[in-house]
């Protein structure tokens, strides 16, 4: 009676001990909380590439092997220890997990968040706990429009410029543009993407016609009815902010029915799938990458190193979520090191905050200027191109670049108001 009980207890004890055992962390290590989707529909296209990039860059940083000016070991000489958290579970859950990262795990800073809902919920907690937080991927412009934060920065540009640049691009490519249709997911990102795109296009061409706009459910997977509607109400361009499995399903089902034979698809997040879906994307499709990332990234030493190291390690080229993650980590590193140069010893969070505000730096995607949202929100140039196969390999042609000042509102104006007023103050070439 007693012996089986003892055996069971020993087994349970062993299991608990192994579960609780954590890697040894030295006192001067830099604990970095990293939050991306590790499960659910956004994990494949966004969360996992971002996490892969973080793994690669953190390891290289800890060896001090990144190209200059990022060749200081770790962050200001401190070895970085990543702590990963799954972004699943919704905004309330993420607020709770953020507290756990800071108060239970004692992280020095947090880099993360792909979902815009999480990016709206977490900053209030970050302010309360006075912890430096870098939002790397989420796109809603509302984060810094509705509030001003001290400890929160976003190194990724907002979705406004995806939509605005998309409208410029199709005006450039199709001089006789008459009609655009839309198919976007029925949630905030889909609604905002379409509203901004249509709003800015209307400002450029007031007689633009919209034969149909469709808002199917997110993760619907079947688009038979929507494709019929798009085929019956033919347009020159079909705007879509679909991503992940939804984009894949739409491309497959649309191509099978000849949807893309005389209408061109404009996929604002298309770059994130261009390697995985290289056989399915019709040539000529317009692809966006939420900034100068992936195939649109400029040719610099950092980018060359990143593409090479990433594809060697993971067997595929890095897509935009991977770039944005690296950009977030490097921004944090640079701000910390610039703050450290001004003080003796390790800088305080306040020191890093003032160094981070209005910081300008070179990421793997080129110049990042933290010049919006009172110095907390990055702006970058935006790029669009058309998909083409070169020697059987995915590539882009007709690439056009739009300067940051052309596709982003000036600091004090909310994005939807800026678009509604016809984008005043935009400086385009």
């Amino acid at each position, binding site marked *: 009676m007693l012996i089986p009980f003892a055996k069971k207890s020993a087994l349970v004890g062993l299991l608990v001990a192994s579960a609780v055992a954590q890697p040894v962390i030295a006192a001067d290590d830099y604990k970095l909380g990293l939050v991306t989707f590790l499960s659910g529909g956004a994990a494949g296209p966004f969360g996992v590439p971002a996490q892969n990039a973080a793994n690669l860059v953190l390891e290289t940083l800890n060896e001090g092997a990144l190209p200059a000016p990022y060749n200081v070991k770790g962050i200001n000489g401190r070895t970085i220890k990543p702590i990963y*958290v799954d972004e699943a579970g919704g905004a309330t859950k993420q607020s709770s997990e953020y507290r756990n990262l800071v108060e239970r795990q004692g992280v020095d800073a947090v880099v993360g968040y792909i979902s815009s809902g999480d990016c709206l919920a977490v900053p209030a907690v970050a302010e309360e706990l006075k912890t430096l937080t870098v939002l790397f991927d989420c796109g809603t412009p509302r984060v810094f429009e509705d509030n001003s934060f001290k400890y929160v920065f976003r190194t990724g540009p907002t979705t406004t410029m995806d939509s605005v640049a998309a409208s410029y691009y199709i005006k450039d490519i199709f001089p006789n543009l008459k009609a655009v249709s839309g198919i976007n997911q029925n949630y905030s990102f889909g609604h905002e993407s379409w509203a901004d795109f249509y709003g800015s296009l209307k400002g450029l061409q007031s007689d633009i016609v919209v034969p149909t706009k469709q808002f199917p459910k997110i993760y619907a997977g079947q688009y038979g009815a929507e494709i019929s509607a798009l085929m019956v109400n033919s347009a020159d361009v079909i705007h879509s902010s679909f991503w992940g499995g939804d984009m894949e399903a739409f491309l497959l089902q649309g191509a099978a029915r000849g949807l893309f034979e005389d209408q061109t698809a404009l996929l604002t997040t298309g770059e994130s799938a261009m390697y995985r879906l290289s056989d399915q994307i019709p040539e000529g499709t317009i692809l966006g990458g939420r900034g100068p990332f992936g195939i649109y990234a400029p040719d610099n030493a950092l980018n060359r190193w990143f593409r090479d190291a990433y594809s060697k390690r993971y067997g595929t080229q890095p897509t935009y979520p991977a770039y944005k993650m690296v950009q977030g980590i490097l921004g944090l590193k640079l701000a910390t090191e610039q703050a450290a140069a001004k003080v003796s010893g390790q800088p305080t969070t306040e020191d890093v905050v003032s160094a981070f505000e209005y910081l300008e730096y070179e990421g793997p995607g080129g110049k990042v200027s933290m010049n919006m949202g009172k110095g907390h929100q990055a702006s970058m140039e935006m790029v669009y191109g058309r998909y083409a196969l070169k020697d059987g390999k995915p590539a882009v042609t007709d690439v056009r670049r739009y300067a940051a000042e052309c596709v982003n509102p000036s600091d004090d104006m909310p994005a939807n108001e800026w678009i509604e007023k016809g984008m005043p103050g935009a400086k385009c070439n």
Partner: protein
Amino acid sequence: MKYATTMIIGAGIALLAAGLFMPGWLTFLLTLAFAKGLVVMGLLLLMRAGLVSFGQGLYYCLGAYCVGIAGDYFETQNALLLILLAVVVCVALAAVIGLLLCRYRDIFFAMFSMAFSMILYGVLVKSSAFGSSDGFNVKPPLLFGWTPTGESGPFLAYGLAVVALVGVGIFVWRYLRSPMGYAGEAVRENEIRVEYLGASVRRIIYTKYLLAAAMAGLGGGITALAAGHIDPEMAYWTTSGEFVFIALMGGVGHAAGPVIGAVLFELLRTYAFQISPYTWQMILGISLLVIILYLPKGVWSLVERVTKGKPL
């Protein structure tokens, strides 16, 4: 009966006192767990009458949005006023929907309740004024001029949650021992007999539905004040499913079951997140499986086994 009331109040005071020394993450986690516990206590009333609602998210979300919207438009941040409003609105809606729902049983009741909560979800996702699926931020609460800041921020919502829990806990405990409370189990066993005994089955179920809605609205309102952000996900069927999960985990045999279930669920989930960020869902699933296999009446049955001297 007085002994139990004193016990519950004593536990509440102990929780409040402990809140002063707890780390912030635990305060926040317990606030959310207690808010969910409130919702599940309402669900417990329905489940004891044999009705499983997959739609408590409707009132949970509605309560939260009442707090968020009223805070924005009526420019009041008085926590008590906001929560009172949330409960009143939820009961008003339940009074209408309940008329239809209390005619249905079993799977039909479950599906109908879920359908109503999904309607709210659909409406909210379409409303860009309320931030569509991203939701919006709720202003930090006040209590009669006391503005908690910094470290004491999470404490106000925690205090509210504990007080609400004590109040509702005493009510549910006494209610379950009242004729109306026992009527729930009678309805589950044999509706015709209940009618022959002279009680109205519809009225019994209707009352329970209203009570459950009030408790869910209360829980939702507290969640909104604590989290500072709300989104339509609160009305999605997976949220309602979580409440059923918690009810099964804690057990519906006693008013304390839902609270224990909710705290256990939140603790289990947060440590599962920390220990294995890739397979935390599996840990949750296995835990529920183990509880169903070995403690079919929920975690509360452990307490009963000990107090009633049954073998483990």
